[in-house]
């Protein structure tokens, strides 16, 4: 009570210091390192002056890099769209049609796929989608030719990623649906709209913050996913992360790898900001 504003501020600083140290050491320092590396001159295994933008112009110079960047972006956007579209009905069902006392059980069940390691899940997808796999055998029994989905690398990367991130997308959508005041839905019907139109005019806009949060949660890590293209696509369809890995670990060209990393971060940043701005439209009116 007898604290001056100054001592209060000091207490505040003390309280946040563990977090601050964490943020500085584990986020700011690596980020700064990558940024600095990206404008230095690289050789095999060494980094030196002078400062240059060569690493960035390399991105433009070789069309394969641009192709990989755009491909990663597209794959991530498609995965995000599929995931959110699949997760929404699940979240809606749990929020609107499951008894309140059962909801947490349902959410718990949805996380079960996470109990197995990602590697195992990816291998299982191989068993399902691969040549002579479960999907093709099933198609065979009804007289259809095999699809051999696994041979289409990008398609299988998308399927595996969408499956992996679906539970992450369910949660934010579920939370935003839980916050929708149920009497608003009755009001929508009372004012002459069917259930479906009420959903489109009331429930969906009110749950958009959750949808956009889900989209970000899926989009950000999938852009930079390294494991899936490596395992599922057999490395035949590299994404940004694989590109960075090649530069940093195989070629040991740290500045070039850093420049790719920065470019990818910028891309993610721009898309995320677009999502957030779009979100403002929906949360603008709400408390």
């Amino acid at each position, binding site marked *: 009570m007898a604290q001056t504003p100054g001592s209060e501020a000091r207490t505040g600083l003390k309280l946040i210091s563990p977090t601050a140290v964490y943020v500085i050491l584990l986020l700011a320092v690596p980020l700064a390192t990558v940024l600095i590396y990206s404008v230095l001159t690289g050789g095999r295994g060494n980094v030196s002056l002078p400062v240059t933008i060569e690493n960035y112009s390399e991105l433009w110079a070789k069309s394969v890099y641009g192709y990989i960047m755009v491909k990663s972006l597209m794959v991530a956007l498609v995965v995000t769209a599929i995931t959110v579209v699949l997760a929404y009905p699940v979240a809606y069902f749990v929020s609107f049609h499951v008894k309140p006392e059962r909801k947490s059980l349902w959410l718990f069940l949805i996380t079960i796929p996470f109990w197995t390691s990602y590697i195992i899940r990816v291998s299982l997808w191989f068993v399902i989608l691969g040549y002579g796999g479960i999907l093709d055998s099933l198609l065979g029994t009804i007289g259809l030719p095999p699809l051999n989905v696994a041979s289409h690398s990008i398609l299988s990367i998308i399927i595996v990623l969408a499956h992996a991130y679906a539970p992450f997308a369910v949660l934010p959508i579920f939370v935003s649906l839980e916050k929708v005041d149920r009497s608003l839905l*009755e009001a*929508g019907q009372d*004012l002459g709209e069917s259930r479906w139109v009420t959903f489109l005019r009331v429930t969906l806009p009110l749950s958009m913050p959750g949808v956009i949060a889900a989209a970000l949660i899926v989009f950000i890590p999938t852009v930079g996913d390294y494991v899936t293209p490596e395992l599922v696509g057999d490395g035949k369809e590299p994404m940004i992360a694989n590109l960075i890995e090649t530069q940093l670990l195989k070629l040991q060209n740290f500045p070039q790898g850093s420049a790719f990393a920065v470019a990818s971060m910028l891309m993610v940043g721009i898309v995320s900001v677009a999502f957030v701005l779009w979100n403002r439209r929906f949360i603008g*009116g*709400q408390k």
Partner: protein
Amino acid sequence: MTFSADRPTMIEFKDVHKYYGDYHALRGINGTIKAGEFFSLLGPSGCGKTTLLRTIAGFEDISSGVIMIDGKDMANVAANVRPTNMVFQSYAIFPNMSVEENVGFGLRKDPRSKEDKAKAVAEALEMVGLKGFGKRAAHALSGGQRQRVALARALILKPKVLLLDEPLSALDKKMREHMQVELIKLQRQVGITFILVTHDQEEALVMSDRIAVMFEGEIAQLADPETLYRRPNSKKVADFIGTMNFIPAQVLSETGDTLEIDAKGLGRVTIDASMAPPARGESPVVGLRPETLTLLYDGQTATERETEGIIDEVIYFGDMTYYDVYLGGTDVEVRLSMRNVPGRPVLDVGTKVRVAWSPSALVLFR
């Protein structure tokens, strides 16, 4: 109170029952609501008022019985096509929309031009006293303003029936009294049948043409406010509406038109048969409203009957004083209310007094 009973029927309930699982929430609702009437559903919390209102709106299916609105059976009519609109207890204002978007929500399928709809929205806002509020964000409104938006949003659709679920309970006393008057005026202006749910008996008396008093899923009495107040049909209704003194009594004799009774502390008295609602097999009591009893000051005489008493308690309200008085040397205590006017001192506890009363004000419950 000049409501004409010969208006056409707007809503008719025929033996309506509603079960929530095993719980019997509505237990045989019968009655009619007239077109253009300000009708209230009054009763204690949990008696089924909201449930009944929601069955009219179509948000709740009934277990058995019939609900007719404007001559049509509502059995298979969904909420969104019923000729009713609701002002929700929480107001249910769409938080992501502006005031005018809220008010115009129900006009999507309206064939009028965009300009005409905008005009209708502006008119509706003006009607509820929110002129110029159209562009405001709905979430930035006060409780009273949200309620007006909810009213405008419903009335713009010109429903046959407007349903209001405890619309004033969230407002403070001043605002509530103000809105009561506004709602009455609004109802007269638009001529739509209003059905108001309330647990506040004063509010129901002030606002309604007729009131259905509900207890435990049943309508106990359906009448105009004056009948409810002066001739409640049961002790329970009498007790729920206003204050009523209950005095043990005996029925001495009964002819077709009158009853001879002996009320403790009041003595023998003849009352009209219309003041004795049908017997329910309870031990007889007579009811007397506090304002029908008057203290007599020196030199005053009663126009009808008088009884001696002793003041036991004095409750001073400024404009009024309530006295609790033991009647005629008995243990029967009644409460009476006197206006405080100049030249009429407030009396002390223990004062011997004479109490004037009128046999025509007595109601017999048995």
